[in-house]
């Protein structure tokens, strides 16, 4: 505030600020808190879980895979939250998408790619309906998507029981080989590289002479790719600017010519699609679908996004922050296991972390808005 009371120099120049210090620019980035949190969590487990194998290549892949699955949801949830809305139906969409993939494949003999396409089409429809209702009614998306949390979960259970008599459908694994679309959601990437690394002794090998890590799980690739794309969109494209504007003040955005409704509908479609990607990865990985999959994932995604520095009220946040939030989440979840602390404590840890993240972000944002 003190800088505001001084006057401008008469020649039109401005002597109040000579240069913007780097740290003030950094303070303005939403993911700052998450960067600090990530460093803190890594440092903590380096000490607390030293010698347990958490930070061996295999251990790293382990927690990265947990982070990746959540991160895929969190990226989409971040864009939506920056756009000013929530989607509480993500978790139920995961369950429904799994069923939509499994039933046509196992009960009606569809090829896997066709069932996957059907699931993605359903996601587009669900996202569109969510967005349309939010736009049309002006109700908070919290309420609209809460309704769909129940509707979609109920549909998954109801349809599955009606058509198969069960709520779990297995046997999908043997349908994956040779399916071009399923290949996008299964297996590992870079096996050649890891074999090469092992051959040169850069990473360890097991008793059979195979590398301890045979490749990067495809979910991690999805996570990194989606985070990169979302970051590009937010920072570099007009559509990204529209997302910030729609979430910052929908009315002002509309009056400035931003197609707010279209932006919001597309973001709801994106969250439903990300839930379907998550479901596809999980179905391919486990070879089965289960109607209760994805339970509470919507809240975990929101936690990751908030730890990543996004504002619950919209208009502020980052995809990189959400990725770091998911990374922290995965590390803590797996790290607690490595440290030998009873995993019952995970939820306590998670809650405390959420609180600390929100307080820290609040503090940082105030500082950022003060520093001119």
């Amino acid at each position, binding site marked *: 505030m003190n800088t505001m009371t001084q006057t401008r120099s008469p020649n039109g120049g401005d002597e*109040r600020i000579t240069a913007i210090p780097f740290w003030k620019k950094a303070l303005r980035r939403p993911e700052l808190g998450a960067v600090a949190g990530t460093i803190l969590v890594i440092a903590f487990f380096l000490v607390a879980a030293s010698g347990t194998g958490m930070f061996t290549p295999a251990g790293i892949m382990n927690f990265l895979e947990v982070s990746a699955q959540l991160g895929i949801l969190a990226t989409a949830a971040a864009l939506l939250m920056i756009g000013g809305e929530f989607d509480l139906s993500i978790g139920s969409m995961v369950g429904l998408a799994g069923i939509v993939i499994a039933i046509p494949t196992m009960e009606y003999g569809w090829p896997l790619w066709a069932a996957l396409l059907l699931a993605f089409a359903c996601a587009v429809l669900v996202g569109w309906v969510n967005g349309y209702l939010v736009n049309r009614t002006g109700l908070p998306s919290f309420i609209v998507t809460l309704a769909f949390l129940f509707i979609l979960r109920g549909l998954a259970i109801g349809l599955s029981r009606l058509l198969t008599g069960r709520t779990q459908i297995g046997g999908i694994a043997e349908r994956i080989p040779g399916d071009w679309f399923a290949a996008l959601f299964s297996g590992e990437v870079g096996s050649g590289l890891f074999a090469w690394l092992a051959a040169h002794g850069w990473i360890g090998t097991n008793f059979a002479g195979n590398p301890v890590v045979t490749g990067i799980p495809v979910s991690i690739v999805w996570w990194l790719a989606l985070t990169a794309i979302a970051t590009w969109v937010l920072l570099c*494209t*007009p559509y990204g*600017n529209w997302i910030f*504007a729609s979430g910052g003040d929908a009315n002002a955005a509309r009056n400035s010519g*931003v197609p707010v409704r279209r932006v919001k509908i597309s973001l709801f479609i994106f969250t439903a699609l990300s839930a379907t990607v998550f479901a596809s990865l999980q179905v391919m990985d486990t070879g089965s679908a289960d109607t209760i999959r994805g339970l509470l994932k919507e809240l975990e995604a929101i936690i990751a996004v908030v730890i990543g520095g996004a*504002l619950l009220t919209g208009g502020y946040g980052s995809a990189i922050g959400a990725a770091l939030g998911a990374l922290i989440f995965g590390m803590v979840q797996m790290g607690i296991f490595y440290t030998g602390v009873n995993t019952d404590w995970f939820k306590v840890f998670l809650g405390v972390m959420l609180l600390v993240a929100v307080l820290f972000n609040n503090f940082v944002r105030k500082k950022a808005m003060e*520093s001119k």
Partner: protein
Amino acid sequence: MMSESLSMIEMRNVSKHFGNVIALNDISLKVHAGEVMCLLGDNGAGKSTLIKTLSGVHKPSHGQMFVEGREIRFKSPAYALDAGIATVFQDLAMIPLMSITRNFFMGREPTVGWGPFKRIDWHYADRIAMAEMAKIGIDVRDPSQPVGTLSGGERQCVAIARAVYFGAKVLILDEPTSALGVKQASVVLRYIAKARADGLAVIFITHNVHHAYPVADAFTLLKRGSSLGTFRKDAISREEVLNMMAGGAELESLDAELAEFQRDQGAASDSSASSAAHPGNGTPLTSG
């Protein structure tokens, strides 16, 4: 006048209802290219509603609107912008958490590249935003600064610079000078004069007669949603405009009230001096 036939923007018998509130009642209005129309009226007269109807925020309940003689129906403000109508809204339509440049180009981002690699040309955008702000007399230290950290007047200048930059045919300004210093206000008035010289139609709302009279070519007076008529500048004096804005008689009675108030104040300070021995017993002074 030669230009009399070419009206840049026109409203014909436009009404706007909000539920059972009649915010605009049968308004007809014509602004020619190279003309500045000043809208006058009390708080709540319907001035903002009128310009929001012109800029596509509201759809008229009845009546027609024309740009360059062609009937238009704006589905949203984006369509009005596409038609060359740029507006400074009373609430400015700025996003506090977004940077100056992001706000400046919101909805109209300059891009480079093609297809999926199309991206905002930030260098160009920053340069234009800073240059346009410099023209209005604000020098921006950092175009990535959030608009929320600007002063009220600086923020108003961003909105005005943006509208001036994007207004191709019609420039609408809803109380643009309300928060501005003398220097910036005079720059805005010069902008209006320049827009007129460039052949734009300008619609300008203000409560300040010193801002309205020098630049306006015509005045339209609104009262409770209805038009009391349009007056050309050569047919009306500054005092008459002032009377229309303030309701003349009201200013006279205000003078009397102010004199009364000063007497009261004098009496109050006397009494507070005399009652100094009894703190908390003073006369309240804050009734204004």
